[in-house]
């Protein structure tokens, strides 16, 4: 998702002027994407336990980053954990963006009772902090990885709905929309051909930032033991499992922690930069 967005959103005209920071960030994200794609192939048995080689420090032969209490290789576990740590957040951001586009556009353009209902719904969801709601619901009702993804989509969607709705409201008052109405164009055509492209920069920027927030939320949930079942290769899960052995093999904690921070920062920076570019150029064009 992140790597695919780069070229689409940026265009080729001013490729040379991409700042160094952003190039570095894109490189980090590309490596993370590789880990997601190749992780299962490179380390198909990363979660296999081997009590004999438990708790080896970093730099041990055959285990460059050492092993954890259950004898699992940290390097293999970390590479294999990328998928669990990253796929969910991207799905959350995309799902919440689609929900936001649909409900936000309807609320902003149709107004009336539909708008009222959708707006109250977002008010209600926004009254609860995402993490708290996710902990409580996931924890009490159980559910696995994809249930957590669905739950987070629901909890993330209010911000998307609000952003799209505000954008649509702003656009709908503009004369070009009234001109489209004068041509008696269908409401779907007005909404999705005329208005949506003009709010797309807002939507895409917010989706990028949501990837970062969802990454944080997801790893927080797995750190708290909710959302990702025990034994799964996942960065957040690794942190909570290895907290006790932090002083025996620091790499077991530091590597996944730094990776989470780095990927979240890179997504945030690329999102911010993309947002600025899109607002400056007036859209995707």
């Amino acid at each position, binding site marked *: 998702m992140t790597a695919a967005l780069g070229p689409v959103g940026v265009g080729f005209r001013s490729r040379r002027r991409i700042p160094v920071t952003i190039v570095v960030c894109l490189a980090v994200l590309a490596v993370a994407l590789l880990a997601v794609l190749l992780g299962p192939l490179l380390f198909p048995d990363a979660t296999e336990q081997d009590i004999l080689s438990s708790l080896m420090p970093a730099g041990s032969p055959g285990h460059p980053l050492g092993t954890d209490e259950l004898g699992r290789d940290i390097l293999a576990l970390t590479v294999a954990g990328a998928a669990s740590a990253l796929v969910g957040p991207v799905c959350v951001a995309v799902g919440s963006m689609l929900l936001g586009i649909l409900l936000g556009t309807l609320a902003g353009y149709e107004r009336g009772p539909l708008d009222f209902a959708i707006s109250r719904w977002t008010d209600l969801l926004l009254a609860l902090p995402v993490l708290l709601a996710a902990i409580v619901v996931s924890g009490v009702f159980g559910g696995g990885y994809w249930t957590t993804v669905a739950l987070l989509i629901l909890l993330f969607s209010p911000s998307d709905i609000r952003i799209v709705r505000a954008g649509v409201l702003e656009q709908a008052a*503009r*004369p*070009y929309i*009234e*001109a*489209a*109405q*004068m*041509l*008696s*164009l269908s409401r779907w055509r007005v909404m999705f051909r*005329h208005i949506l*492209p*003009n709010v797309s920069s807002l939507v895409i920027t917010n989706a990028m930032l949501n990837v970062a927030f969802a990454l944080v939320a997801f790893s927080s949930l797995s750190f708290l033991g909710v959302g990702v079942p025990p034994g799964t290769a996942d960065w957040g899960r690794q942190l909570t499992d290895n907290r006790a052995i932090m002083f025996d093999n620091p790499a077991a904690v530091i590597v996944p922690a730094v990776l989470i921070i780095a990927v979240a920062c890179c997504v945030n920076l690329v999102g911010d930069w993309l947002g600025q570019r899109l607002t400056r150029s*007036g*859209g*995707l*064009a």
Partner: protein
Amino acid sequence: MTGIDVAIDGIDGPTGPMVAAVAFGIEPGASLALIGESGSGKTLTAKSLVGLLPNGFVARGVLRVDGRAHPLDATDASWRRVRGREVSLLLQDPFTSLSPVHRCGPQIAWTLEAQAGRRLPKRELDLAVAKRLAEVNLPARVARAYPHELSGGMRQRVAIAAALASDPRLLIADEPTTALDASNQAEILDLLRALQIERGMAMLLISHDLGLVRGRTDDVLVMRHGEVVERGATATVLSSPEHAYTRALIAADPVLAIEADRHDRPDRPDRPDRPGDALGHGADIGVSGRIPLISATGVVKRFGLRTVLDGVDLSIAPGQVVGVVGESGSGKSTLARCIAGLEREDGGSIVFDGRPLAPGRRSRTPEQMQIVFQDPYSSLNPMMTIGAILREALAVGGRRPEEVPALLELVGLPADAAAKRPAQLSGGQRQRVAIARALAPRPRLLICDESVSALDVQVQAQILDLLGRLRDELDIAILFISHDLAVVRRIADTVTVVWQGRVVEHGTCAQVLDEPSEDYTKLLVAAARRDSTGRTTVA
């Protein structure tokens, strides 16, 4: 050596040069008007003289105040010694130029303390603030008011008091009355003129309105596209302008246009089938037996508790141009929007070609009527190419996409404009595209809602010519909404004057604008004259 001497070598922006070399001098106790439309560089010129250009803009040159030279590209630290004491700036909008969360008194007091260079005792400060307020004819209690508690005119007086509290040698007033209504405009300008003479201070008055500065400044400088096109004594420039642009500005001035028009009105072919010219009053339903194209009867529209239209009648014959004039808030645009179906009227009836139309867009077809809006920058979808915009409109009218070049030619645009996006076109070109889009479904009525108000005067004239030509070629009826009497006079056959949601007068252009019979119309015409001459010419 006294007075102000300005020598700007140029002002550069992020995208290139914005203002070319400008030089002028102002004697102490004299005033200079800097005239130009938006984008002429006049505001950049003003800001460069206080060292407050926006980020990315650089000015080169020197400002001399009583012989003391201040380079325009000096550091912010050295500008701080110049601002206030030597030069002060009065901004356009009194609604934003005062801090909304502070009372007025302290905002004046800060200037006083900045000049004194120390904190002043409260009593002394209160007295000084009261004195400054008295100077701009405000009572001392205004000091305790928040800006939002004052009217626009009063706020601008507070802003003047604050700007003058440092006793500057030069006051730059950047469009000081543009945000105010007509009655306040003259008062504020006269106050500025009086203060400037009284204090022996130099004043640079920046405005887009030539008429406004007549009798209020000694000299005038006309700028266009960052260059000075004409300069001289105000009276001379107004009576015998040399540059074509200055002449266009004067032509756009309501009173001069009306006076000139009376003598040499362009000949139009006689068109007896257009009832407006011949019939004037009551030229409504078929005196000549013809059904009007559209007739609105007793239209009422309320926004909440406010009644915007209070029983308005209007009718337009096929091929006729009807002007609707009125001040902002008179309801003229709402009337147009009700007819177009963009607003739903609360009462009355609108009949198109003999068939009544229910309120709203659903009952109307694109072939009946189209509208051209005021702002050419927001009336085209920025994400679509001109070609895509026109193809969509042609498709609605059942026409083929191959007709795009012909449509562009009709409105005077080159065929290659189709590949461009709105951002690549000028305001006038965009308005031509908007007209082309409106014409695509072959509507029988074209509604122009302040369609030329946002344009440069020369472009305004071109668009009016285009509309006149289209009316003759396509035999299309036009409903022309404007606040500008001069513009309406140039295009309309009949004029309807709207005031507070009611029609106060209706007739041919000549009847209504030259010999108005209703008091309000007389007032409107008179206001246009006073506005542009500084004195009332109609007894």
